[in-house]
């Protein structure tokens, strides 16, 4: 069973890497598109602050580890299958350039696997509604409204000034708002992996079920993985968030990032595992719509909304299938090994074929 635990931890760290990789767009897109920072500098900057952010709070990790599923029903195979659901969905949405939620993919994957493993009674519907679904509906609307009000106030205050120095000012301001958002991203998102590894450790008997502390090595490895993923970057989603929803000026970039950071940091403090993707997309749309409704490309926004709605059920289905296939081979490590090799093979075949056709870097949302 040690093999199984090690395997789950390695896959969880890999998920954390894809989370940073996938969500880099959230953190740097606005800074890059308004030319506040060069792409390389923005990604490096975000990577460092993601690492730091992962250390500053553990409220979300506790929610992930205890509020969505019955801990008695959690086995290492359930955690493994949930991670497979999240990773596959993250890679699919990355491929199509859609900024979907890594958080909802992870929680969806675990719920799908739990449903197959232990039935509906093992899923905590109350926790799911209270801690996930309602905040998921409120957060992007809140970011939309705050960014909209903020950009109107900004234009009111600086609208009659010379645009040159004003734009330079907001580009500098994006260093502050971008830093806050990177910190918020590290704080909220790295904790999801910490929560999932903690669940695996509880299932394996390394940690007590009712009162546990997240081990320091879990915090450090999660922080490092998300920082490395962020540094590696997900350029096609950057393009969608940074320029395909609206064409932003520096003040809009500042208000979108500032509003997003405020929402995510407040949520992290209260233990809500929010999607930073939903929040920044809401902020970007709010900053655009307040200036001019037609400035927002609502078709792109609609595609993003569809990806949001599909994430939880799609990841749940993939997680459920991964669990079902794994359990055919018994409770040991053989099933997860077979599933991992199969998933890796499909991914390599799919992406390898597209890369050989030269389409991997040109297709987008």
């Amino acid at each position, binding site marked *: 069973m040690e093999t199984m635990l090690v395997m789950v931890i390695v896959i969880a760290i890999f998920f954390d890497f894809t989370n940073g990789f996938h969500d880099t767009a959230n953190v740097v897109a606005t800074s890059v598109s308004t030319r506040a920072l060069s792409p390389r500098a923005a990604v490096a900057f975000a990577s460092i602050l993601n690492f730091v952010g992962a250390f500053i709070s553990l409220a979300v990790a506790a929610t992930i580890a205890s509020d969505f599923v019955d801990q008695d029903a959690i086995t290492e195979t359930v955690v493994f299958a949930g991670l497979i659901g999240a990773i596959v969905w993250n890679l699919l949405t990355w491929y199509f350039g859609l900024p979907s939620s890594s958080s909802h993919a992870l929680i969806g994957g675990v719920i799908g696997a739990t449903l197959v493993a232990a039935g509906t009674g093992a899923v905590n519907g109350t926790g799911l509604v209270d801690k996930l679904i309602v905040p998921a509906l409120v957060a992007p609307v*809140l970011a939309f409204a705050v960014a909209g009000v903020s950009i109107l106030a900004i234009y009111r205050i600086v609208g009659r000034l010379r645009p040159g120095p004003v734009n330079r000012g907001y580009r500098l301001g994006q260093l502050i708002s971008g830093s806050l958002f990177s910190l918020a991203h590290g704080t909220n998102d790295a904790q999801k992996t910490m929560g999932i590894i903690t669940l695996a450790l509880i299932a394996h008997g390394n940690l007590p079920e009712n009162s546990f502390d997240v081990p320091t090595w879990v915090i450090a490895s999660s922080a490092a993985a998300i920082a490395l993923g962020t540094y590696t970057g997900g350029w096609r989603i950057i393009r969608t968030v940074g320029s395909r929803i609206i064409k932003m000026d520096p003040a809009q970039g500042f208000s979108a990032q*500032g509003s997003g950071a405020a929402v995510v940091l407040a949520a992290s403090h209260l233990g809500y595992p929010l999607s930073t993707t939903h929040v920044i997309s809401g902020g970007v749309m709010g900053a655009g719509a307040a200036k001019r409704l037609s400035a927002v490309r609502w078709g792109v926004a609609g595609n993003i909304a569809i990806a949001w709605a599909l994430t939880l059920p799609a990841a749940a289905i993939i997680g459920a299938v991964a669990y079902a296939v794994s359990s055919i081979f018994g409770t040991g490590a053989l099933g997860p090994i077979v599933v991992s090799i199969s998933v890796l093979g499909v991914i390599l075949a799919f992406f390898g074929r597209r890369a050989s056709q030269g389409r991997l870097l040109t297709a987008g949302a």
Partner: protein
Amino acid sequence: MTATIDTGQLLELVWTAAVAGAALSIIFSLLVLGLVRADDLRRSGRDVVAGAYLALAALAALLIAGGVVFGVSVIVSK
């Protein structure tokens, strides 16, 4: 189902995020306003008014720095 939702905590999220997000944008705009107007006024020889705008910019910078430190410390203390 509504009985399961912690509306108090949700409202706390809404008002803290709204106040913090809007305040950051407004105070940073006052910083930009202060710096740009101070520069314009100094060029046209109105040094006293330029000084007042510079003071506004300095106050805004202090408020932003204080707000960021306060916000992060609140999260760290959880």
